[in-house]
């Protein structure tokens, strides 16, 4: 395995006190939150269709896999963090039923709004709460949730260690965290093909469908900058998670990390 470059070290994703990466660019740490916000503000309306296009629909299977590994059942309290347009929330809501609860939390109100409208249209009301929140400082009491999922969200967070610690805090003992995120393809050929795809094709699709090549360029870059499998595993352990494991999906294009709080 190659050594992760300096930006991917486990201690922090920040390169120094005051700057951090935004895709491949260096920006002020204080600015990143707003820049990420702008990206998702601008992609919100076309987000779902782009997801299907970019992943050929396979993101739905990755999300199903995450739910299958969550052990969720009726009565559970679930936090779908960086939940965006609510794909995971919809399924969780039906499974936890009336006695359970799902909190869809996202830093971006545009994404939350698209999510809320979509879920209401699907008839999902009652056991879902919508909360605008930053993953780094979750506004929930300690030991609140049986399950936390963060799907394709962690790579956008400025201080990932802080976010993981915050998730650990609000998770109930015996609860579990599932991180679904782009990762590093295990096969060199696949890695190259995937780079071609994400740096050349993806921004073009973004331009064509969402008229927004920049945001999709950022997505491609942020995927590349995200800590790879082993590094993220170590970061979770540092935050206190136990029995931490990961499972590569679609050749490591995506990985699901899982950890427990005991």
């Amino acid at each position: 395995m190659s050594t992760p470059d300096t930006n991917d070290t486990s201690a922090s994703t920040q390169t120094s006190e005051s700057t951090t990466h935004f895709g491949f660019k260096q920006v002020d740490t204080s600015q990143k939150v707003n820049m990420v916000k702008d990206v998702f503000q601008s992609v919100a309306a076309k987000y779902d269709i782009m997801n299907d296009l970019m992943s050929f629909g396979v993101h739905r299977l990755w999300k199903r896999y995450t739910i299958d590994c969550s052990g969720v059942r009726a009565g559970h309290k679930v936090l779908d963090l960086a939940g965006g347009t609510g794909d995971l929330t919809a399924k969780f809501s039906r499974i936890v039923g009336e006695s359970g609860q799902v909190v869809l939390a996202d830093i971006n109100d545009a994404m939350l709004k698209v999510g809320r409208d979509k879920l209401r249209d699907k008839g999902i009301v009652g056991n879902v709460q919508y909360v605008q929140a930053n993953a780094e400082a979750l506004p929930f009491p300690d030991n609140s949730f049986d399950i936390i999922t963060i799907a394709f969200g962690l790579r956008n967070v400025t201080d990932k260690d802080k976010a993981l610690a915050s998730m650990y805090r609000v998770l109930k003992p015996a609860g579990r965290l599932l991180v679904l995120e782009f990762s590093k393809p295990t096969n060199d050929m696949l890695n190259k093909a995937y780079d071609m795809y994400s740096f050349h094709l993806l921004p073009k699709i973004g331009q064509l469908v969402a008229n927004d090549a920049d945001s999709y360029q950022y997505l491609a870059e942020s995927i590349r900058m995200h800590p790879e499998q082993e590094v993220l595993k170590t970061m979770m352990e540092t935050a206190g998670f136990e029995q931490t494991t990961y499972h590569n999906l679609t050749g490591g294009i995506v990985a699901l990390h899982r950890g427990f709080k005991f």
Partner: protein
Amino acid sequence: MPFAQLMTSGIELAMNQLLKLDEDSQQRLKKLSGKSLQVTIKELPWPLLFSFSEQIDVRAVMPSDKDLEPTTETVDCLIELNLETLPKLRDSSQLTQLIQQKQLNLVGDIYVAQTFSALLKDLDIDWEEQLSGYTGDVVAHQTFASMRTLFDTAKTQIEQGAIELGERLTQSDSIAVKPSEMFEFSKNVSELRSDTERLSARLALLEQAKKADTGLNN
């Protein structure tokens, strides 16, 4: 590619689409609302977990969760059976008999298994009605008369095929196709093809007739 999830999403989609076509099914589904049923089919690598709400959600229980084996505390009903027994579940009145014959293991609330089986068995979909939305009543009716004949033939053939496949799967020796089987298969296919051709010829006739009809009315 997560194959288990590909499979469960297919099953889920098919079941919910079928339920949508039968208005009364919602009423029957309500009886199961909030319940869950885990089905272990011995030939499949993953147990299937069904959760009921205003729709059916289907999950695969992943092997990494073996440490968290479900119990009746987490699932309302657990059943375990062979692929061969699966079709027999369509008759919910047979459940107790299957348990007695040890063809089916059941732990937990038998009502959940019975209601689920009845839900699928009692699906009453008016296909003719569905089609008439697109083609008009007469064509729909005629088509269905022909389709029924075709389906009956196909059903017999498929059932026959399934029995043979079942036998073959349980025999652990060669899975290579024998010439006689290949011959039988080709024969079935060509029978099916000629049935289909007959049906499409009939459809073409009907269409012509319909055109002539509307022509006269104008």
